[in-house]
């Protein structure tokens, strides 16, 4: 086994793009229970985001490292891949139920939305605002505008401020919208139900609408509760852009549920997240629905510094100044920072294997990584800039406009 490992490391040094060697190396590390190291290798392998295998193994690594949140994210990512196999035996270990649509495709039929598909977060999984690094201003806003009205309805009632209702979190991908939604639920001390598109969209005519109604009914029955709809743009796709009646019908049902026509939505906080708020039907953003829209920006400097620290905690390193590093990578998302750290680690390893002298990761290695990378959030920010700069949408996107100005992206 050792000789195979040395051989694979040698191959990777001579050609870091030798995919076959890296797959075998990553698997070998996994087999040797080196979860962290294996996870790092799978992360590199998963840059092209094509196969479901990498995120699945990453989810397993995370599960064994007790990183439940990350495991769930990787599992969700695996589900998105075209070669995802719902019968993969590894899913049993991850405790992931087969998705509704796929079950139907496989010949089964479900009349009711199944419990397992809707992710209810248990107390042990709870994320608090204190777990969300940095983003002080955002957390303050969320506390005042969402958490406190929900947690202390009496006080806010006296000031004629309502609790419950809908909040739309929008921002570039990979910047923690889901984590923030979960933190909101924890802070509200409410039951949290996360709903993805696979839980709603169904093959059968009318079933998607029934799924949605059933989810709302359950949330009402369990009030106080927080319903979280991820990828709202897919569930409430703009009817002016849609060509099929099904999309329109689902949006109509969603609007009806938000308006509470089949029950009162008091003490039900409806959260949603989207990367593409411009694809969400305009009617969803009207008063009484998702009228509170909150921009979740890329991690701020404090958050980035903490990310560098946490990513390098168990990695040999020399004296580092995470604050300076963070200042050099504005608009980087968490995934971008992972990429920078991986780049630095790889270049250090290459150097060690070349000249035989062992050393830790240095500030310069990370700076080189930052210089080699470009923030993945920029494309999103540029598109969003057009909305506020030319589209006259600044009133609906005040926080975004403020962020763009501060980041010199306006």
């Amino acid at each position: 086994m050792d000789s195979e490992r040395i051989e694979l490391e040698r191959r990777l040094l001579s050609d870091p793009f030798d995919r076959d060697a890296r797959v075998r190396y990553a698997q070998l590390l996994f087999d040797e229970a080196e979860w962290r190291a294996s996870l790092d290798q799978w992360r590199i392998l998963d840059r092209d985001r094509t196969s479901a295998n990498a995120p699945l193994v990453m989810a397993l690594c995370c599960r064994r490292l007790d990183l439940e949140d990350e495991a769930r994210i990787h599992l969700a990512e695996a589900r998105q891949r075209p070669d995802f196999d719902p019968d993969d035996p590894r899913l049993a270990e991850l405790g992931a139920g087969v998705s509704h649509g796929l079950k139907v495709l496989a010949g089964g039929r479900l009349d009711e939305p199944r419990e397992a598909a809707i992710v209810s977060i248990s107390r042990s999984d709870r994320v608090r605002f204190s777990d969300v690094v940095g983003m002080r201003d955002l957390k303050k806003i969320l506390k005042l505008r969402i958490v406190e009205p929900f947690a202390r309805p009496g006080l806010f009632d006296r000031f004629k401020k309502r609790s419950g209702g809908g909040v739309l979190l929008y921002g570039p991908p990979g910047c923690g919208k889901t984590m923030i939604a979960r933190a909101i639920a924890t802070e509200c001390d409410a039951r949290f139900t996360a709903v993805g598109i696979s839980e709603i969209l169904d093959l059968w005519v009318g079933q998607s609408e029934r799924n949605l109604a059933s989810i709302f009914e359950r949330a009402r029955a369990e009030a106080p509760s927080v319903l979280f709809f991820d990828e709202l743009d897919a569930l409430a796709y703009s009817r002016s852009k849609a060509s099929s009646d099904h999309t329109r019908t689902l949006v109509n049902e969603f609007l009806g549920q938000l308006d509470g026509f089949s029950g009162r939505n008091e003490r039900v906080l409806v959260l949603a997240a989207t990367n593409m708020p411009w694809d969400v039907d305009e009617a969803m953003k009207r008063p009484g629905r998702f009228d509170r829209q909150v921009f979740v920006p890329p991690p701020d400097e404090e958050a980035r510094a903490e990310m560098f620290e946490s990513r390098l905690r168990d990695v040999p390193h020399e004296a580092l100044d995470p604050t300076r590093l963070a200042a050099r990578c504005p608009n980087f998302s968490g995934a971008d920072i992972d990429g920078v750290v991986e780049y630095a680690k790889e270049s250090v390893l290459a150097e060690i294997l070349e000249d035989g002298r062992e050393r830790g990761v240095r500030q310069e290695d990370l700076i080189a990584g930052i210089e080699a990378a470009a923030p993945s959030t920029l494309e999103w920010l540029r598109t969003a800039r057009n909305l506020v700069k030319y589209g006259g949408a600044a009133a609906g996107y005040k926080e975004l406009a403020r962020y763009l100005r501060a980041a010199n992206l306006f």
Partner: protein
Amino acid sequence: MKDAERQISRLIEVGRHAEADRLLASELAEHPTDPDLHWLAARAALGAEDDVRAREHLEQALASDPHHFRARFLAFAIAFDAERFAEAEEIVTGLIREHPADAELIAWYAHLMLRTLHVAKARALVDEALARDPDEPVARRVDVLLLTIEGRSEHAGRRLEELIRDDPEGLATARTLFLVLAERGRHREAFEVGRQLLRADPANPALIDALVELRAATHWSALPAYPMRRFGWLGVAAVWGVGVVGVRAAASWSPAWSVTFLVLYLAYVVYAWVHPPWLKRWLRRRGF
């Protein structure tokens, strides 16, 4: 449409191409030659901007069923968007021959003719399409554009009103309205409609260019250039004529007047020449 196909179609519509691909992969494993599935796979690939894969799936769909209507129509749409107009014409005329009662197909052929500036033929085709189905939306939109081109503004306005009344939130209607308003020189209204369109499609650089043009035309600092903006090239020619006549008249009055007039006139010409591009650059930088 089968249930799985409906689901895939829906995922494609909301831009979830990876999920659509996942479902397609399992469906295609069971029915590898199903032309409907290959047609859907082509749509998913197109959505993901993978033109090569889209073409491959289309070819497979047509290999399984050479008369597959939706695959052929998609091939037409791809050729149209890629400006392979002769190929698009060949496909759409073939489809019309097989489905002569389909007003939408004829309307699309009219649209193709309009885009390739065969205005008379486009008009004849639109009339044919509207004779078959007076409510056909593509035909109605092309009709409005043609009426505008033909200078029949009143008719165009009336038809446009009907279009908006029937589909007030449709993006295609808004695009038609935007084009017509801009063409008629109703810059302020066109600007507002254009902004709404941009809010729905913020990554559209052509729309931003058009909005910058419209905003520049309605900016207060462009007011002195109003005659040229309002009357176009006729206005420019008139400004030149005023200059020639003015210089002569001022010279016949007194040389001092002549110099003053000339200086003012040249300042105006320089303003008219330099100000619009400068303003556009400024607006692009500052936004509006």
